[in-house]
Structures are given as structure tokens and as C-alpha cells.
């Protein structure tokens, strides 16, 4: 087809400009004609206005074989009818047959652009579509640059759900995932293991654990405290030396398969009409306005107008005009926030406060232990920070440990350090479960935490200065379990302007500037 087009074009001299305008270099979206250039208008519903850049390449079979004869001929009637046909194909009323496939490009306009297609982004998209009135009122676009999710935290997660947090909002957020238990249409089987979490505390941490459990019970989580004696009765394979207290979650706690949830959400969300784009956000085009606060200070408010989405493996990009941007980019949210101008200002001011979310690498190891604990094994988190859980029926276990600040591995790649298992993970686990003295590591992988260096809790809500960017990131390892609730909260914020089911105002961005930490102690 290109060949025929070339022949047609050479005959007419129209194509020279057309070739330059399409398919080779970068698109300059800001051309004098605005957003024309055939730059991926929505097929069937948008018609690019006629401009000097539009190339006329019809697939009229009547022209096959006659192209050579066109060169230099003065066949006026044929020319006129051809031009007429081409004009008709682009004017309204005619069938829009774009000469090339643009389905990989995102639409030119979208009400909400969600940067990041992991579980948080999909959850926000789901709730936006679920809570919008009337149906189909909002166009939602999810931009995800890696459709294989090879580095996404969601896919690499160990998949636990627990309510044993210290901050009440976190507990409520995780209780909401009981929603996953409710039969949805169609029902989503996420392979949930309702085995519960068992947190162990040493002498030092026992008092904190007791107060945490009180808070958890107040919020409605079903947690029971166990003494070492009771622990030995219930789980005879635990060595309770050094354990002063244990808290055991009885309901809605356990683990599930995050990949199932991700794929299920994707399918569900696509069926609800959310658009997906395989691309990367490279630029925000925004405008600023200066206003004064009530105390007379000058502030600069920014508003994002366009999101430039660069298509994967290509230099092509599409500017998407949007009303809202939701930053759900997980481990890369800091970079997205920088693109939007968050943190560009003198340090110590609100303009200069960066989003303190960075990626931290965490290792997960899978081992086999033939004499290991049986079917009743909960997700055990030792006082030292090492954790493990049962995987399947074949005496396999998944586990790991969060490194201390000094030992943080380099997050540049996802290579696994096996020495870390030998030195930091195995000894505490073998001490806690003597059966783990003999084990064999089967495999290991690494994933990212979107680690909030400020207080290890999520950031939810709009930015105070970039008024139409909303954050839903920074969950530091417990984003998967909080995803349904966070998605609903952000959707409520977007649609109603305030939180309704769970009040997440303690997780607002401004706490980074004000210095108010909402410190979560039970981070694994």
C-alpha cells in the first residue's frame, strides 16, 4: 500500500510533504495547525479537518495499474474525480478510512488520565466507572508503559492482606478488601488463602503490639493476642524463645494471587469502558496562575492541560488533553511528580516539597522444606522482620526480610542477592522454626516497594499547588491490600470532592510540608 501510495504521490507531488509529516520523525504536536496531523483521532468519532498536511491516500482499486500512466498526463477528469473521492473520505458524512492504523494511540481527549496500570491505577479506574453518574459520563484513560508488568510491584508482590496495622486508616483500608469477598459480577477468584497473619513480638515490642491490637479491634478487625504458651499449643513447630506476645488475625487475613487480581481487574475495567494505552508519560503541559492566599502570600497554582504519551518502542507521542491526572505510577511516582513540577522550588517551601516516594528493592525467596509446617501455617512475621508463608501444598514457602536502611540494595535493577538470604533471612527463620534448618532455595525474585521515605504510608489526594494532579501512591509494600479502598477514595474525591467511605485526609500531600508524620509501625 505504501508502494502504491508512493506511486500516487510521485505522480502528484502531494506525497512528498505527506511522507515527511507522517511516520518518520517526532510529531510536533504544537504545530501551527494545532492538533491536526492525523495524530490518532478517535477512529470513527473524530474527523481530522482538512489541512495541507493530510495526505490523500485512498484505496481505490480503480487506480491499480494505472499509476504509471498518471505521470505527467493531463487527464483532468480522472484527476478531479480522484480528488473528489479523497475529499469525501475525510469530510464529515463519509466513511472515515484512515490510511493507517491508529488504534495504538491514545485518544486526543480524555477526562481522567491515570498514569500507571497496576492494581492501584486499575482500582481507581474501576471505581471511577462504578461511581460515575450517569453511566459513560467520564472517559478514563490508563497509561501503562509495560503491558507485561515485568517490573510492576503488583505482579511481584507476595500478596498478603492483613489488618494488623497501627494507623486506624490503614486498618480500615484493609478491611475494605473484604469487598473482594463479595461476589462481584463476574466473580473474581483470586485464590485467597484465609490463613491469617501471625505477628510475633519480643519483650520490647510487646507493649506496642498490645496497643496496636486495641486500635485494630476498635476498627473492627478480628485479632487475638496469644501468649507463648498458647502459641506453642496452636503451632507446635514454632520455637517461642524470645517471643513475648503474638497477635493472630482470625478473619479476612491471609494471602492471594496478585496476578489473578490484576488480570481480573484489567478485564473488568476494560469491559466497563476504560481505555488503555501502551505508552509512557514524558511530559505535562500545564499553565500557571498566580494568586494570593488569605494571609497575603503569593502562590503559583499550576494546572495540567495535556499529557504527552510516548508510544512504546517508537518516537511517536500523542498529546492527550485531560482534566485530571492521577499519579498511580508506584515505584516511579517520584519521576512523574517531577515532570509535573512538584518539588521545583526553594527547599523548605510548599513548592519545593518533593514527593518522597522512591523505589526500594525487596527480595522474595521460595524454598522447599520437606519437614516444614503444614497446612495451617499463617503468614508469620517474626519480631526481627523476617517473614514467610506457605505456598501451595508441596511444603514450599515464600519469604524474605526488609533490609535496614544501611543495607538497602541498589534499586537500579531487579537482580537478586542470594547472600542476603543466607545472612539475613535464613538465620532468624531457622531460629523461629527449627524445621527450617534444612531447606533448599528453589527460586527468588526481586520487586520494588514504592517506598515513602517520610512515614511509610500512602499519599492520597490532590496536590495543593498542581491542582489537578491526584496522588495514589507511596504505600511502601502494602498497596496491594489497600488498593480497593484507595481506588474508591480517589474516585470519591474526584467525583464528589471529598472522601465518603473512609476519610483519608491524614494521607494528604501537605503533611510532607507541614512535617506531620502518620507513622506506620507495622511495616514488613
Amino acid at each position, binding site marked *: 500500500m505504501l508502494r502504491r501510495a508512493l506511486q500516487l504521490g510521485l505522480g502528484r507531488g502531494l506525497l512528498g510533504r505527506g511522507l515527511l509529516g507522517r511516520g518518520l520523525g517526532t510529531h510536533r504536536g504544537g504545530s501551527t495547525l494545532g492538533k491536526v496531523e492525523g495524530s490518532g483521532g478517535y477512529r470513527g468519532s473524530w474527523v481530522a479537518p482538512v489541512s495541507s498536511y493530510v495526505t490523500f491516500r485512498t484505496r481505490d482499486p480503480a487506480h491499480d495499474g494505472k499509476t504509471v500512466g498518471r505521470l505527467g498526463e493531463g487527464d483532468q477528469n480522472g484527476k478531479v474525480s480522484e480528488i473528489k473521492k479523497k475529499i469525501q473520505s475525510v469530510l464529515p458524512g463519509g466513511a472515515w478510512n484512515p490510511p493507517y492504523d491508529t488504534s495504538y494511540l491514545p485518544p486526543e481527549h480524555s477526562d481522567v488520565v491515570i498514569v500507571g496500570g497496576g492494581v492501584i491505577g486499575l482500582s481507581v479506574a474501576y471505581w471511577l466507572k462504578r461511581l460515575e453518574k450517569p453511566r459513560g459520563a467520564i472517559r478514563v484513560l490508563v497509561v501503562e508503559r509495560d503491558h507485561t508488568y515485568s517490573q510492576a510491584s503488583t505482579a511481584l508482590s507476595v500478596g498478603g492482606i492483613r489488618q494488623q496495622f497501627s494507623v486506624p486508616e490503614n486498618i480500615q483500608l484493609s478491611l475494605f478488601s473484604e469487598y473482594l*469477598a*463479595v*461476589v462481584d459480577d463476574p466473580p473474581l477468584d483470586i*485464590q*485467597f*488463602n*484465609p*490463613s*491469617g497473619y501471625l505477628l510475633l513480638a519480643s519483650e520490647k515490642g510487646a507493649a506496642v503490639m498490645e496497643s496496636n491490637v486495641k486500635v485494630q479491634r476498635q476498627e473492627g478487625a478480628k485479632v487475638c493476642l496469644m501468649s507463648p504458651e498458647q502459641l506453642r499449643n496452636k503451632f507446635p513447630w514454632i520455637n517461642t524463645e524470645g517471643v513475648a506476645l503474638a497477635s493472630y488475625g*482470625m*478473619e*479476612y487475613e*491471609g494471602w492471594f494471587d496478585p496476578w489473578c487480581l490484576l488480570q481480573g481487574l484489567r478485564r473488568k475495567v476494560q469491559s466497563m469502558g476504560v481505555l488503555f494505552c501502551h505508552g509512557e508519560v514524558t511530559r505535562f503541559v500545564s499553565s500557571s496562575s498566580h494568586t494570593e492566599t488569605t494571609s497575603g502570600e503569593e502562590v503559583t497554582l499550576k494546572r495540567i492541560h495535556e499529557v504527552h504519551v510516548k508510544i512504546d518502542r517508537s518516537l511517536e507521542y500523542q498529546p492527550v488533553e485531560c482534566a485530571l491526572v492521577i499519579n498511580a505510577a508506584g515505584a516511579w511516582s517520584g519521576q512523574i511528580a517531577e515532570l509535573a513540577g512538584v518539588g521545583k522550588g526553594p527547599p523548605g517551601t510548599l513548592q519545593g516539597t518533593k514527593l518522597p516516594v522512591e523505589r526500594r528493592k525487596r527480595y522474595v525467596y521460595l524454598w522447599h522444606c520437606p519437614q516444614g509446617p*503444614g*497446612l*495451617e*501455617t499463617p503468614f508469620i512475621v517474626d519480631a526481627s522482620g523476617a517473614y514467610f508463608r*506457605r505456598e501451595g*501444598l508441596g511444603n514450599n514457602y515464600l519469604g524474605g526480610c526488609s533490609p535496614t536502611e544501611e543495607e538497602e540494595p541498589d534499586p537500579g535493577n531487579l537482580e537478586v542477592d542470594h547472600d542476603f538470604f543466607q545472612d539475613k533471612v535464613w538465620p532468624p527463620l531457622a531460629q523461629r522454626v527449627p524445621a527450617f534448618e534444612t531447606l533448599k532455595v528453589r527460586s527468588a525474585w526481586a520487586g520494588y516497594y514504592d517506598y515513602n521515605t517520610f512515614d511509610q504510608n500512602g499519599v492520597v489526594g490532590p496536590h495543593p499547588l498542581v491542582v489537578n494532579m491526584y496522588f495514589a501512591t507511596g504505600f511502601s509494600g502494602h498497596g496491594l491490600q489497600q488498593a480497593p479502598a484507595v481506588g474508591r477514595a480517589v474516585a470519591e474525591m474526584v467525583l464528589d470532592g471529598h472522601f465518603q467511605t473512609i476519610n483519608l485526609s491524614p494521607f494528604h500531600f501537605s503533611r510532607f510540608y507541614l512535617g506531620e508524620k502518620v507513622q506506620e509501625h507495622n511495616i514488613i
Partner: protein
Amino acid sequence: MAAPRAPLHLVMPVWNRGTRGIRGLSRAVALEGSQKKGRSLLQFLADRFYDVQALREYLLQKQVLKVHQKNRFQGKEWIRSDAHGHFSLDFLKFQAVPVEAVDASGCAINYQGLDSLLALKELQSLWLQRCPHVDDWCLGRLHPLANSLQELSLAGCPRISERGLASLHHLRNLRRLDISDLPAVSNPGLTRILVEEMLPSCQVLGADWAQGLPSGPEEQSQDRASPIPA
């Protein structure tokens, strides 16, 4: 477990919305002997009565929780519905009696519906055979019955897998567990072995431990080995 008794013909009262109007026929109740201890068992009905059932059960249990000591009556074992699905009014006499066993086989009880069952603190026997909506999440909710539950039957529930069975270890007093014919369990024989290890004093019925093992070519007739004695 219980020897079969002659079914009572009882008529279920139909609760209207918000009112306690009872409409129904009461038939002759056939009582069989007197028991030393009052025991009463209820059988749930088909789906369309479930909401009504749940409400009635809830009201019943409020009574039960208040008065535990009155457990003597010439009672009968199973209170069933008759051909028309009605219970008699006489079950109201049993309000003060703790419910000991519930047969909810085939009933469309689901995750939220278990609320009414979990209030039965003295429940000893729970039959959830062939319930289409009972899944792993529901099994995770059964732990409040740990003190009293002795028999649990989950045979034929299409949604239960080995992951839900793992949460049964809370039920320390369980003596009989029936996990036969669970289509969603990936490896029935292995699951059964693991469940038996998990609940040492419980007799696990159902999945044959030899299931899933490839039969060698010399064994033409599948000779099902006898289960490991508990």
C-alpha cells in the same frame, strides 16, 4: 451421626415485612419419646425463604443466647419442613433451646448469611453439603464455632478449595470432617493427608488418599485402597 427419626410435619411461619404476623397451618406434631437433654435441630429451606429464614433465625438466636439453661423438653430431633416447605408453630417453643445441629445442605447460604449461623454458640454439627455459594472466605469465618463444633460436612461444595480448608485448623474440637467430592480442590488425596495432619483428633472422610496417584499399568481395576485409619 444421629439415627434417623420420623420427620415432624411442621409448618413454617411466614413473617411479613416488619410484622410478626404468623400465617400458617399447624398440623399434628408427632413427638417421639422424650429425651434427657433438649436438643433441637433446624433445617433450612429453599432459596426464596432464605431471607425470612435468616430473620427468624436471628430472632430465635437472640432468645437462645439469653437463656441457655432451659434445655429440657420433649423434644424432637430434626425439625423439618413438610412437602410444602412449611414449619409448624411449635418450633417457637424451642426458642430457649440452644441449637445443636444445623443442616443447611443445598441451601444458598453465602458469606453474609453465615452471620446467623455464627451466633449459635453451642452448635455441634453443621452440614453444608452442596451449598453453591460457600467458598474459602466463608470457611475463614467459621472460627467462632471452634469451642463447640464437632462435625462439619462440606461435601460437594463447588467453591471450596484446599486454601479454605487450611483455615479449619481453628476448629480444635472437630471430630468428623467430610470433604468428599470437592471439585475445586486441586489434589484431593494430598489435601486429605495435610488436613489429617492439621487436625490430629479429627476423622476426615471423603477424599481417598490414593486419589490422584497414577495407577500403574498392572492395576487394571482401580482398587481403591482403604483410607488411613484416623
